[in-house]
């Protein structure tokens, strides 16, 4: 039984590895026609023109990075506040439970619902805001999709942060209290430094979600291939372009360019994750 169990674990783990490598290999093979025809220009080309077979991923790379990082910046204060409140101030009891479940529910709502909410509720608000400040009042665009994304990714960093903050050994906290620290000082000087790595990992998880989100973004970003000129301008993301154009990509090079976009997104995600891992290990070794 012991051997059998161990072998099953190894096999299942291997299947996952093979699957990821297989996906990467398929993406590479399928994007060969596009790589051959466009070369490296694909990465910084600014035109995406399926009629003339000119493909450049730059506007979508920009859109993906802008929406992901802006949404991250918006979401961090909220997710950390939730984590601290539910982990430290109110970690037990029915209210804490209700709040915890509600936050987790945010992650369970299908993304198309967020898209609709964004389109019907948020877009008019943003448009009114834009009219007030004399910005071209599209309503939809990078900024709107960043807000929608921010709400969607809050629970990832929040749940992880809450669990970690709860796990801070109580003798550390009690030590700080006995030295006369206030609650704020305990949080600032004991809890946050102790959980720093984990909080950062939670943020990374949120970022991963933001990079790959498709449906909600498609509905509120404006889907234009033009390069965004401000954060209120419409744009497009890599995932959204693939979802929009994949089913009707009717010639080889077009399809291949879309798959290369997938490969590119795959690489961007890997690189960002690696940078994150590197940062984590640097801070923990100190």
């Amino acid at each position: 039984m012991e051997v059998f169990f161990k072998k099953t674990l190894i096999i299942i783990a291997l299947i996952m590895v093979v699957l990821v490598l297989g996906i990467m290999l398929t993406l590479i093979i399928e994007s060969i026609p596009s790589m051959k025809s466009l070369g490296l220009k694909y990465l910084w080309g600014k035109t995406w023109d399926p009629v003339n077979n000119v493909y450049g991923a730059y506007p979508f790379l920009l859109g993906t990075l802008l929406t992901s990082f802006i949404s991250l910046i918006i979401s961090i204060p909220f997710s950390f506040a939730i984590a601290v409140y539910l982990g430290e101030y109110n970690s037990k009891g029915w209210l804490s439970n209700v709040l915890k479940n509600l936050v987790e529910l945010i992650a369970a709502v299908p993304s198309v619902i967020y898209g609709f909410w964004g389109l019907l509720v948020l877009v008019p608000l943003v448009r009114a805001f834009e009219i007030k400040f004399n910005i071209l009042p599209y309503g939809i665009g990078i900024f709107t999709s960043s807000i929608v994304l921010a709400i969607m990714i809050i629970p990832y960093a929040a749940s992880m942060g809450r669990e970690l903050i709860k796990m801070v050994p109580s003798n550390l906290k009690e030590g700080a209290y006995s030295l006369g620290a206030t609650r704020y000082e305990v949080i600032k000087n004991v809890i946050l430094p102790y959980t720093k790595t984990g909080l950062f990992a939670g943020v990374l998880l949120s970022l991963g979600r933001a990079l790959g989100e498709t449906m909600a973004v498609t509905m509120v970003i404006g889907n234009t291939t033009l390069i965004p000129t401000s954060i209120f301008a419409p744009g497009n993301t890599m995932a959204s372009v693939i979802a929009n154009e994949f089913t009707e990509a009717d010639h080889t090079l077009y399809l291949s360019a879309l798959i290369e976009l997938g490969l590119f997104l795959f690489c961007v995600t890997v690189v960002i994750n690696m940078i994150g891992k590197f940062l984590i290990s640097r801070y923990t070794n100190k």
Partner: protein
Amino acid sequence: MKKITQILSIALIAVGFASSAKAQDDKTLLGAGATFPYPLYSKMFSEYNAKTGIQVNYQSIGSGGGILQLTNKTVDFGASDGPMNADQTTKIGAPVLHIPIVSGAVVLTYNLPGDNNGIVLTPDVIADIFLGKITSWSDPRIVSKNKGVNIPALPILVAHRSDGSGTTAIFTSYLSKVSSDWNTKVGQGGAVNWPAGLGGKGNEGVSGLVKQTPGAIGYVELIYALQNKMDYAKVVNKKGKIILPSIASVTAAGNVKLPEDSKIFLTDTDAPDGYPIAGLTWQIIYKEQNYNGRSLDRAKKLLALLWWNIHEGQQYAAPLNYAPLSKEALKVAEKIVKSATYDGKPILK
């Protein structure tokens, strides 16, 4: 991750198709393709089933997907809103037949406060709006054609489809024909590099953008505009007549001499009463039906279905807001269906 599951599920569907095609029973025909005629096809095929006992299993996965399924020989017929392009024709490697079934139209829908249903637009105005050259509703070229109509002086916001679609193919084919500027700068296709405006996913995405933004203009399928009671524009056609898009004017657009293979965009029609932004939708089969070990019986059943679609089946089109084939189009369609062969011999007499 989502993308990956998508690719996986496509693979699974393909496997499913492959196995079901192998286990084909004699009572079921398989088809896949365009989403635009799907409501009509499901009505037609259920009537056909009630009449003949033959079941037609149609998957509306998109025109490109339908052609791919036919190329992989996993379906009996594909369905598409646009004729197959050069790339697809090379890939399929055998002669195919395009059988026109019905036609549909693309209408310009807009959001202008006030009572102004049915404003008139000329071809050059439409092209310049979508090129981003005309940016205000108060442009003299719009106002001069709509005397007495209350058009507020709003900036124009262009809304287009963000996903690849037959609707876009029809619309850009029209723009390419009426504007040389559009033809050289943008061209025609199911997805193009739009010089202006915002993209919405699907008819509902475009109409959502238009409904929300005063001053917006977009294009959707006629059937979608009718179902949702949206305002749409009258268009001046090639003969200079002002045409309201309707089932009659769309059918009329197809009442011209069609090429023998029917592979044509009906846009910018010569027909005097025809609405100029219209297009056919096709069912596509292999010309030689003896492939992959198909039986003569199966080929006969398929051809009988297609014959029925262009004759008795046509009565179900108008109630669902599709435009039935014109007389000219029907003649061409009959000829095409008759040209299908089994071992080089015609199947229908």
